[in-house]
């Protein structure tokens, strides 16, 4: 037996922040065949007990309940404290043997090749580059580089930055631990325990805003504890940082310097009053940083002779999975699967697999609809109040296109329970063998800026995609529905359809199986299937960032077609300086579309370009993940024809005219998205910290600013929903202080809703988990599942052990 190569699985593990010393126990989610329209059942799974002192797995058990939050009595100034349980995933090492098999690397296997676990070492590099992304100052990058280690200690990921007050100051990004293999648990694995979700701040207060808001003056401003005031305001410009308002406002007359603004803009904690769009569009940074991060874990096996074997995986730390029993309509796994398989569905895919995936998409659609207040998101007046006062996609559309606001569908038909029911009926019919009949009403990714009545009513409706326009599914999801719609009656149907999340056997080259690999002990919340992928900017990762370097030699902006800078290799590749140019076409395919809307003269029959002063041709950039799906599929490693604007166009969108001299054609190589034969996003595309750099700093701020049209099933909006006497639904806003059953529409300044500083201070209390659509911090399983090794079950622990 020889070990040829190593792999770390899963290739992307998602940690989730929380201050409880006890990680969330292991659980999975399953639909209940007897009640398939209900929430997925949270089922406990075998959970490892890691001995705090030895670093080995001392036991395993099946939990009786799954707690997401612990109430710690009497701690803190104000008494009881809520502590959210972090999600702390394990990463397992696999070996590819000389038989070309992918097998778990264990101490026994090491023994077979004459080695022991000390031959294994790990290196972990994570970073938080959120501030750098805004300020463009590399000194603002917070990086933790834990050099090769073989110990079994709990190693702190200390995030240091040149712009911190001193070399000792750091952000605690959490812990990594090489789990000591033992006889019972001989596998080689590492555990990543993310940070607590703390906010760090500047050593001097930020300047005051020239704006004021008498309604918000009484608000108690969060005080970052003294020991976390580590950002040196003399070294860095983050505290007090502000984006030139001309850019923020997309002012066509703006002539100031270019600033590489994020999309959405000003995603950071700003000096009160906030939000900026209600207060003169002035966003002055408070200088906050958070302890979220992403990075790369490397494992090395050093043989007695020969070269060491090394493998990578990625980790990321993000907010809790607030709705553990639901999956979002378009999640990160959908996008990664599209990279792996391409946008098309092979003709020889078994019919039952296609059907199962189509049904799963519809299921996730209704799981998403559940948490959207459809009436509000549709743009209905809220108790007679102007819908323009509330943050919705129709309102966004009205602002962007400078047109009057219109509801998406007829107001009377827009209710959560009614639309939820309709989706559930579609699901029911598909489960009964009907072929999908609605492929035509799915929004194509190049139709996201079609604001005609027909265009904006396409599915998914009322939600935002990664390009800031209406959400589209991935091409692969759409093509799944299309293929399923052509299946013959009854073909591919079964009493139990295959699980769409279990994509075949684990082999060295089955990337999909590697991506979806369920490592022992890992709750489902650690998997890409629970991460959103309509990244505006996202929650767990900003997937847009993975595409910036997909064309060798240039670096694109994550959210549009602007070449932000050239790669150092550009000169060797013979590329001219394209900084500031815009990538218009790849292989003749447009990287942007044109915003169109109804003609006032013939609302349903004709469309017009939705031109504005700052965007006279209504150009709307398209998200990379769908735009480049085909390019990646067919041209990876090859050169493709790219058309750029002939000149730099830093500030404005540019259109394709096709006129001679208006564009520059170059051949660029498409870089591999994954490392060879793995499902690890290539480090050449994103370095540590870059997959999360577009996210909000701190992330808690975004939970206040993002409405449910982004990630309804991940950051819910409409909760405790039930039918009312009127026949429509009633329920609470997730962020409303008191649960009354009367939804409080989010106008950002309403005192009955939690505010920014409440979240900074008490996010673990305020963010209520949703189980079965209702506020709940723990789930009781319906039935036993899995097999623990212990004879008894456990629910808590005060010992030296962690889960």
């Amino acid at each position, binding site marked *: 037996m020889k070990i040829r190569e190593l792999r770390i699985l899963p290739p992307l593990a998602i940690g989730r922040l929380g201050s409880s010393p006890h990680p969330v126990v292991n659980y999975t989610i399953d639909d209940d065949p007897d009640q398939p329209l209900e929430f997925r059942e949270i089922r406990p799974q075998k959970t490892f007990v890691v001995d705090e002192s030895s670093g080995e797995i001392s036991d395993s058990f099946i939990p009786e309940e799954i707690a997401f939050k612990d109430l710690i009595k009497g701690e803190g100034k104000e008494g009881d404290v809520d502590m959210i349980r972090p999600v702390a995933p394990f990463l397992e090492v696999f070996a590819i043997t000389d038989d070309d098999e992918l097998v778990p690397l264990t101490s026994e296997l090491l023994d077979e090749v004459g080695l022991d676990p000390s031959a294994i070492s790990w290196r972990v590099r994570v970073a938080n580059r959120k501030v750098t992304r805004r300020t463009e100052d590399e000194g603002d990058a917070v990086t933790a580089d834990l050099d090769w280690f073989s110990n079994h200690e709990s190693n702190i990921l200390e995030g240091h930055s040149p712009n911190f007050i001193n070399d000792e100051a750091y952000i605690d990004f959490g812990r990594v631990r090489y789990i000591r293999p033992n006889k019972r648990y001989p596998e080689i694995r590492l555990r990543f325990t993310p940070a607590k979700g703390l906010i760090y701040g500047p050593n001097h207060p930020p300047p005051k805003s020239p704006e004021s808001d008498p309604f918000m003056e009484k608000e108690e401003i969060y005080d970052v504890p003294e020991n976390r005031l580590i950002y040196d305001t003399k070294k860095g410009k983050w505290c007090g940082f502000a984006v030139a308002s001309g850019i923020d406002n997309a002012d066509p007359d703006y002539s100031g310097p270019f600033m590489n603004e994020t999309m959405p803009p000003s995603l950071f904690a700003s000096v009160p009053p906030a939000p900026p769009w209600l207060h003169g569009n002035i966003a002055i940074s408070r200088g906050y940083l958070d302890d979220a991060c992403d990075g790369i874990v490397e494992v090395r096996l050093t043989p007695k002779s020969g070269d060491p074997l090394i493998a990578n995986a990625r980790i990321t730390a993000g907010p809790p999975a607030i709705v553990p029993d639901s999956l979002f309509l378009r999640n990160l796994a959908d996008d990664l699967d599209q990279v792996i398989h391409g946008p098309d569905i092979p003709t020889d895919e078994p019919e039952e697999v296609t059907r199962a995936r189509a049904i799963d998409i519809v299921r996730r659609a209704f799981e998403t609809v559940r948490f959207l207040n459809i009436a509000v998101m549709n743009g*209905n007046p809220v108790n007679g109040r102007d819908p323009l006062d509330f943050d919705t996609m129709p309102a966004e559309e009205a602002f962007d296109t400078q047109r009057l606001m219109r509801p998406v569908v007829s107001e009377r038909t827009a209710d959560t329970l009614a639309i939820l029911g*309709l989706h559930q009926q579609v699901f*029911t019919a598909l489960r*009964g063998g009907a072929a999908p009949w609605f492929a035509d009403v799915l929004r194509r990714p190049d139709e996201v800026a079609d604001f005609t009545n027909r265009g904006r009513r396409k599915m998914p409706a009322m939600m935002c995609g990664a390009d800031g326009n209406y959400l589209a599914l991935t091409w692969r999801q759409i093509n799944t529905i299309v293929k399923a719609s052509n299946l013959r009656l009854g073909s591919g149907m079964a009493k139990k359809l295959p699980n769409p999340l279990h994509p075949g056997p684990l082999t060295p080259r089955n990337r999909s199986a590697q991506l979806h690999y369920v490592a022992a002990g890992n709750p489902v919340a650690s998997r890409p299937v629970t991460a959103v992928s309509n990244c505006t900017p996202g929650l767990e990762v900003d997937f847009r960032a993975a595409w910036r370097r997909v064309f060798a030699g240039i670096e694109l902006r994550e959210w549009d077609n602007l070449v932000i800078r050239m790669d150092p290799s550009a000169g060797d590749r013979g590329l001219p300086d394209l900084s500031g140019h815009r990538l218009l076409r790849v292989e003749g395919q447009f990287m942007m579309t044109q915003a169109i809307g109804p003609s006032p003269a013939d609302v349903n029959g*004709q469309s017009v370009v939705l031109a504005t002063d700052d965007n006279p041709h209504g150009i709307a950039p398209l998200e990379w993940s769908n735009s480049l799906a085909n390019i990646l599929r067919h041209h990876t490693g090859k050169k493709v024809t790219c058309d750029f604007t002939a000149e730099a166009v830093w500030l404005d969108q540019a259109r394709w005219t096709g006129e001679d001299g208006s564009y520059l054609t170059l051949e660029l190589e498409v870089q591999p998205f994954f490392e060879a034969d793995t499902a690890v996003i290539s480090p050449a595309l994103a370095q540590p910290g870059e997959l999360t750099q577009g996210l909000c700093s701190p992330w808690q701020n975004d939970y206040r600013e993002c409405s449910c049209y982004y990630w309804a099933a991940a950051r819910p909006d409409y909760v405790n929903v039930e039918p009312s006497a*009127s026949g429509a639904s009633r329920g609470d806003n997730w962020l409303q202080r008191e649960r009354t059953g009367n939804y409080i529409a989010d106008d950002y300044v309403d005192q009955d809703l939690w505010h920014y500083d409440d979240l900074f201070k008490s996010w673990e209390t305020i963010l209520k988990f949703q189980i079965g659509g209702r506020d709940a911090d723990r789930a009781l399983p319906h039935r036993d599942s899995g097999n623990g090794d212990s004879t008894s079950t456990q629910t808590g622990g005060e010992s030296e052990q962690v889960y």
Partner: protein
Amino acid sequence: MAKYTAQVLKPVDEHRRKRLRAKEGADVEIKELPDKPEGMTWRDYVIMLLHIGCELEHGLMAQYLYAAYSLGGDHLSKEDQEEVQDWQELILTVAREEMGHLLTVQNLLCLLGGPVTFDRENFPWDSPFYPFPFNFEPLTRESLAAYVFAEMPGNFEFLDKLYRDAREGTDRAHIRDIEVPFLEETMKNWVEKADARPVGEVYHLVHDILTKRDLIPSTDLRPDSYPFQSSWDDWGRGYRPNPSRPGSDETKVDDNKANIIIERAATRTEALYAIKEICGQGENPDLHPGRNHETSHYARFLEVLRNYDRKLNESPDWNPARQVPVNPVTASTCDPENPPTGTTVISWPASAKWADLFNCRYRMLLTFLTHTYRLARIVDPDEPNTRGAVMHRIFGEMYNLKAIAGILVRMPLVSPDDPRRAGPPFRMPYSLDLPSDEIDCWRLHRDNIAYSRELCRALLDPANDCLDSTPDEGEPFLRTLCNWDKKAAAWVEAVLDGLKGNGGHCS
């Protein structure tokens, strides 16, 4: 259709003959209308004609659905299955468009202040407005001929003129030489005189009566009914061509996709426009109407007929449909020993239960549909409430019917060993009249849901052995439907509680 006497139908025939003569170039004063039947005002008569229109649209829609569901089966080659699937989609598209016609006619009834209706006779149904009895039957060359005739733009003399000059080798020549003689011959087998009335005739008379202000004065119209009428926004579900792109006047009309016309009418002009629209969609004779125009139902059915003939030329025994029965009924709706003439009893117990479930959901659909028109007048039209919720449930029931029909056509008619299969009965409920009291309407919904749950439970009960002969997807479907009904029952209870606490009034 005994309720419509020869006396009330006479004006339709007179008017039709006049129109045909006018089409043929005779010097006929088409504007001069026949006398109205005695004992009726003109308004009353138009309302009655519109009721006939509704019944015909409903009947045709159900008939087309049945024919579409019958298509396919393991006896077909893969290529043939694909082709037949296209036909199925085409016929379903026409059925969806008929739904739009039905709603448009309800809107006209609202404008005239008449009662809306979703009623029709059970099949077989011999209507004087139809040259042959309405039957639920698998798609055959003859039944296709009937559908072509139903949507035909005039009589055979008219068709003769239409295609007389067709150049040899063209589609039009094929229709002249093969299809039209076949149609004529088929019709003659059904009716003594080839003077039967295609569906559009009713609308032509309604149209011409409405143009006369002296017969239908403006005071007879109810423009205030406009908010209560069905709109495309509520019911169209995206079935409409895309608007033209900027700078172009070209709308992409795709004949494979439904273009649902639901016109609302607040004025006489809008009412006349609505009639022209639904007539045009049915009977436009143009086989290739060119850009921006869709192919009519007549032309689309004709195309299927031509393709059918092509397949028969290749193989004379070729049959696109499953062995589903003509006018299926169950023991719960008739005496199985002595079923109504022309019907076929689904005798296999499991299939009969599924058929009863189909009927139950069909009833739910029709009850919701009727209820939504009443709710339109008693709840706030601009807010989400019971009206919108009921509207969505109607679509949900359409999906259920589609799924159950798909299961039924693969289930035994009499026994698993017998190749004959069952089919969806589309049984009309004993009444579509809603109770006078709103509370009782919701109790009716509750009863329908309860009955559906009872049937699902019975089908799932291992003691009844129903699942053995049910396709695999039947069981998960039933469990999902049970789950759905449980939620629906909770919703109905919430509304009922509100009504009870509110003195029977909607909140």
